[in-house]
Structures are given as structure tokens and as C-alpha cells.
């Protein structure tokens, strides 16, 4: 950014979304948006790197050569316990958006695409396992992994194929999670066709954020909610 490699530090909190500060310029950045909100680089925005939130087992099966961040032994005492999610549900929020019958700490999967924002209730997505929808002008596909917890989003279009692919779920085998009506191909959880006419092609991933409703709504005031409104 600005010709500098920035080194970031935890520097505060803004309505329960944290702030970072870079050593090099002293600029403060909002974590959820990557936007610089105070300091010499105010107005700039960090480039989002695509990431997934997965279980280690799913990730390991996909990236057997990958590397994992080590614990820092002297701070392990402070690391999240197994029931961290349940504990966090009880933590009060300082802002509230009691719309659509949603509680502040309801977990949502948020997508910004096609000029719009849309939130998908995580529990509903996990239950449905395969979800076809639109975010603004963009057709999206939300797919639950074979572990029943990991979720990815893709553009619901096969490269080089016109029209809606019409995906459906065929099982839980990692290499054959989905099939599409358009080409009759089998697809894995990484969104790549493993057999059929489209073999070798991959769907375009769509960035998705797993976040609490209050936080997503605070930074996406115009968001719609799947199952509630369009």
C-alpha cells in the first residue's frame, strides 16, 4: 500500500469490530472492511484476499501440502475453547438491528456481489446443503461441504456454458458432491468438475464472510436476508 509493506497491530475496537494500526504510517484500519479510517492513508482500502472458513479435515484433504499456523505456547491459555461459539452467543452487543426476527449474534454468511449485499442464515444454509440464489445481479450457489459445516459460495454459472447449470446434490463423497443438469458433470466441494462434459472446469468462487448479524448489518445497511426479503 502506497509503496510500503505494512505491519499491522491490534489497536482498538469500533462497535465490536476491531481496529488495526500499521507501524509504518500510524493509520487505523477497520478490520471488517479493510478501510483506513484515520491517519495518513485514510480513505484507502486493503485488497481482500479470498479465504475460506473450513474444518481442518476438509482443508487437509484438499491441500495435503499446506501449512498450518503454530500455537504460541505461552498464550495457549487464552486460545478459544471448544465451546467458544456457544460462549460468544451470550456476549452482549453494543448495537442492535432487531429486524427480520434476527438476534444480534445470529451467524450469517454475507456476500457482496452484483451491486448488492445479502446475508444467508448459517444454520439454514447448513440444513439445506445446497442453495441457489441471487445477490443483486449475480447468481450464486452456496454449497455445504461433506463435513456438514464448511460452506463455500460460487458464481452459479459454468464457464463457457450458457444459462443456469441447475445444480443438485448427489451425495457426500468429496469428489462427487454435486451434479448439474446442463452438462451432466460431477462437481467437488472446491467447485471443480471431476467427471462429465465440464471436467476440468471450475466455478468462480465468490467471497463470503461468516459474521454475526449485528456486525454484517452495521457495515451493510442495505443488506437483504435470504428467506426474508429480496
Amino acid at each position, binding site marked *: 500500500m502506497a509503496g510500503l509493506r505494512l505491519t499491522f497491530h491490534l489497536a*482498538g475496537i469500533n462497535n465490536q469490530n476491531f481496529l488495526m494500526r500499521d507501524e509504518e504510517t500510524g493509520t487505523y484500519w477497520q478490520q471488517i472492511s479493510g478501510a483506513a479510517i484515520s491517519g495518513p492513508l485514510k480513505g484507502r482500502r486493503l485488497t481482500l484476499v479470498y479465504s475460506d472458513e473450513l474444518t481442518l479435515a476438509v482443508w487437509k484433504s484438499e491441500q495435503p501440502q499446506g501449512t498450518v499456523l503454530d500455537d504460541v505456547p505461552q498464550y495457549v491459555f487464552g486460545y478459544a*475453547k471448544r465451546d467458544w461459539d456457544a460462549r460468544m452467543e451470550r456476549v452482549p452487543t453494543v448495537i442492535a438491528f432487531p429486524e427480520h426476527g434476527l438476534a444480534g449474534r445470529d451467524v450469517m454468511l454475507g456476500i457482496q456481489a452484483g451491486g448488492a449485499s445479502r446475508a444467508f442464515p448459517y444454520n439454514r444454509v447448513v440444513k439445506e446443503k445446497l442453495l441457489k440464489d441471487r445477490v443483486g445481479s449475480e447468481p450464486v450457489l452456496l454449497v455445504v461441504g461433506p463435513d456438514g459445516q464448511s460452506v463455500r459460495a460460487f458464481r452459479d454459472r459454468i464457464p463457457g456454458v450458457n444459462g443456469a447449470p441447475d445444480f443438485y446434490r448427489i451425495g457426500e463423497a468429496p469428489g462427487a458432491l454435486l451434479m448439474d443438469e446442463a452438462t451432466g458433470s460431477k462437481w467437488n466441494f472446491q467447485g471443480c468438475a471431476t467427471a462429465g462434459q465440464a471436467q476440468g472446469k471450475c466455478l468462480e468462487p465468490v467471497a463470503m464472510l461468516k459474521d454475526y448479524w449485528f456486525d454484517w448489518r452495521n457495515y451493510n445497511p442495505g443488506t437483504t436476508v435470504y428467506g426474508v426479503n429480496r
Partner: protein
Amino acid sequence: MSNITRRRMCAWVLFLCLSLSLFCVVYPIYVIQPFRHQGAQELALALVVARFRPLLTTVSALAAVLALGGYWLVQARKWRRVLPSAGAALVIVLACLARINIYELMFHPDRHPAFTAVRDVKLDGAEKVIAVRIGGEARAYPIRSISYHHVVNDVVDGQAIVATY
């Protein structure tokens, strides 16, 4: 200028230095609390104060020391020097506190992130991770640890990134 006037002026300078330093240290801490709503304008002011407080509190401390020196020169009674001395000492302490990042005292940073090949990792398969792939390198940050450190500065396939949670 009489000694009384000089004493009063030095005392006022000390008082102003103490007030400024207290404001610089306390105001951002007061505004930026985890379970307090932050308004846009107060946050903007708190962040400006936080950015400049190392400099402001240093200047304030220097001014306080000079003012204390001036006060001592015109105040022969030692017991009357105690309160101004304590005030100047507090200004110096505040100048030190202004440089402490209390958030990193609560959530220590991972200053030298190290990584292990996934085949050698002992974590349970059900552990959740934030995963990235850049170029030929795949990296995972377990949520159990990154939710504590919050920020991990890393380089993946030669590209500098910051993983946050």
C-alpha cells in the same frame, strides 16, 4: 516578575500539562472500550488523539519538568514542592503510558508466526481454520488461535498479507 507570580505561572503550566496528558491517555481508552458503543465523531477524535499522544505527552512531560524546575527555584519551602513534584512525576508516567498498546497487552500478538506441515499437525480435524491459497502455497490459520491474536502478519508465496479474525 515576583516570586509569587512565577510560582503561580509554573503551577498553572504544571496543571495544564497534567490535564493535557491525562486527556491524551484517558480519552481514547474511555471511548474505545469493548462493551461501549462508539459514535462516529467521538471515535474519530479518539483516534486522532491516540495517534498524536506520544508526541503530545512527551512535549507535555518536558514542559512539566521545566515548570517544576522553575517552581523549585522560587519555592524554598520543601514541603510545598511535594505536590508539584508529584504532578510532574505523573505527567512523566502518562508519557510512558501513552506508548503502551493496551489491546496487545490483553491479546498478545504472534510476532514471529511459525508454520507446520498439515500432515504433522496434531489438531483435531474438527478444528475450524481460515484458509488461503496464494500461488502455489496453501496456508491455514486455526480460529482457536487467530481469534486470540486477532492479527497475523504473514507472507504467502512472496505476497505480504495480514490474516485477521
